[in-house]
């Protein structure tokens, strides 16, 4: 082991054994151990999701049919929004690597620039996730369950033999008024119209929505539209069970509640990690500006929070695949 004595050792920073195990500092190694344990938590959650999904006998919602809205736009854009969220997180991971790299050159202004951009990326992701949750919770029209067996012909001529308890989906406009009407709010009423029925809101802002078409298999297969008299047949066979969007008790996306609950828990737990990551980044950002690490002559702290931030990106890569793609 020639050469050992050629380096002077600052004794106070060495471990008891006289060296640094794995050639990393104590803090960095403990960050790695924490991340391994956190990764086991997320791995366990995603495995639980896979277990429930695999053992479910009902159809599981398809990602690109549940997540296909963009803020402020009416059409269908499958997966575009989550792809954007993924991209935001990857970019913020890149800016974090660049902040760490700048720290290795003791380039304070570089660290400030890249860490600042990382924080902004984190806020963008959190905002996107808030919108995503809001959209998931409010839903897109809602559904009702059938009270009896019905046979209907879809617009494309396909005949469906539906059973009691099967879900039927309303469109966005009709469902929007149906929710308060079901809840018995006084300003809402169901009236006959030229083409069938419509829901009307009377009051300061009067709205109305006609029952144009109902949708079958909205989230599980190729969806089919049913309109006119056939739609009325479905509407008249409705049971009292409606679902609008999702909450902890029921959801319009799937028969089983586990789907919505896993969505809330796993994306929520990930979002909580992003949030805490942003908070930690801000604290270190302030310390960088104050020159704490300049005086310390190294920016190892940026590297440690960088590890945490990349981990958040890493988890999202898996969440993205198992919730939205597969």
């Amino acid at each position: 082991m020639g050469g050992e004595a050629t380096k002077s050792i600052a004794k106070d920073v060495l471990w008891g054994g006289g060296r640094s195990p794995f050639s990393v500092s104590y803090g960095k190694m403990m960050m790695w151990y924490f991340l391994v344990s956190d990764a086991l938590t997320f791995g366990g959650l995603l495995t639980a999701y896979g277990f429930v999904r695999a053992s479910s006998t009902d159809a599981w919602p398809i990602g690109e049919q549940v997540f296909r809205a963009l803020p402020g736009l009416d059409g269908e854009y499958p997966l575009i929004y989550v792809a954007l969220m993924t991209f935001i997180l990857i970019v913020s991971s890149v800016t974090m690597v660049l902040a760490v790299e700048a720290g290795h050159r003791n380039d304070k202004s570089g660290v400030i620039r890249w860490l600042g951009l990382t924080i902004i990326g984190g806020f963008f992701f959190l905002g996107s996730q808030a919108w995503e949750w809001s959209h998931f919770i409010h839903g897109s029209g809602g559904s009702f369950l059938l009270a009896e067996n019905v046979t209907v012909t879809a617009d494309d001529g396909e005949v469906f033999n539906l059973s009691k308890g099967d879900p039927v989906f309303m469109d966005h406009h009709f469902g929007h008024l149906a929710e308060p009407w079901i809840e018995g709010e006084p300003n809402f009423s169901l009236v006959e119209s030229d083409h069938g029925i419509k829901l009307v809101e009377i009051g300061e802002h009067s709205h109305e929505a006609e029952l144009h078409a109902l949708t079958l298999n909205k989230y599980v297969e190729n969806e089919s539209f049913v309109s006119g008299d056939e739609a009325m047949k479905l509407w008249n066979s409705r049971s009292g069970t409606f679902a609008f969007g999702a909450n902890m008790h029921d959801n319009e996306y799937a028969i089983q509640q586990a789907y919505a609950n896993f969505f809330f828990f796993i994306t929520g737990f990930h979002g909580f990690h992003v949030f805490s990551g942003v908070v930690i980044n801000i604290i270190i950002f302030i310390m960088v500006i104050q020159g704490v690490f300049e005086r310390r002559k190294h920016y190892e702290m940026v590297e440690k929070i960088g590890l945490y931030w990349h981990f958040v990106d890493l988890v999202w890569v898996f969440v993205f695949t198992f919730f939205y793609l597969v």
Partner: protein
Amino acid sequence: MERDDLIVNDSYALNSSHSEEEGAKIRKNVWKVTGILTLLTTVEVLMGIYFKRSETFTWTMIKWSFIILTLVKAAYIVFEFMHLGHERSNLKKVIIAPYMLFIGYLIFIAISEGFGHLGNFNTLH
């Protein structure tokens, strides 16, 4: 042989600091990895939009390619962005091996039990 695990003059580890030239090389690599991650994500999203879930062999292949692409992306994040690929190999093993062991076993046991009622992996869709 020069020891590389000693903390000297506040420099705490391998590659703890580097020059402007080395930095330029590292930054170039970062942009390369960024390009790869963006490309893989784009491919995944396009495949997700184009292929519909079905009970066909094609879909099974698509599904496995999603998982493989995800693992490739994860490897780039861990080994490049998190710098694990450039750490000592014993650190690499200490991080990766226990994780693979536990999660591999968990996935195996949970998914095979989950499909118990079907009795057959091929019906997976």
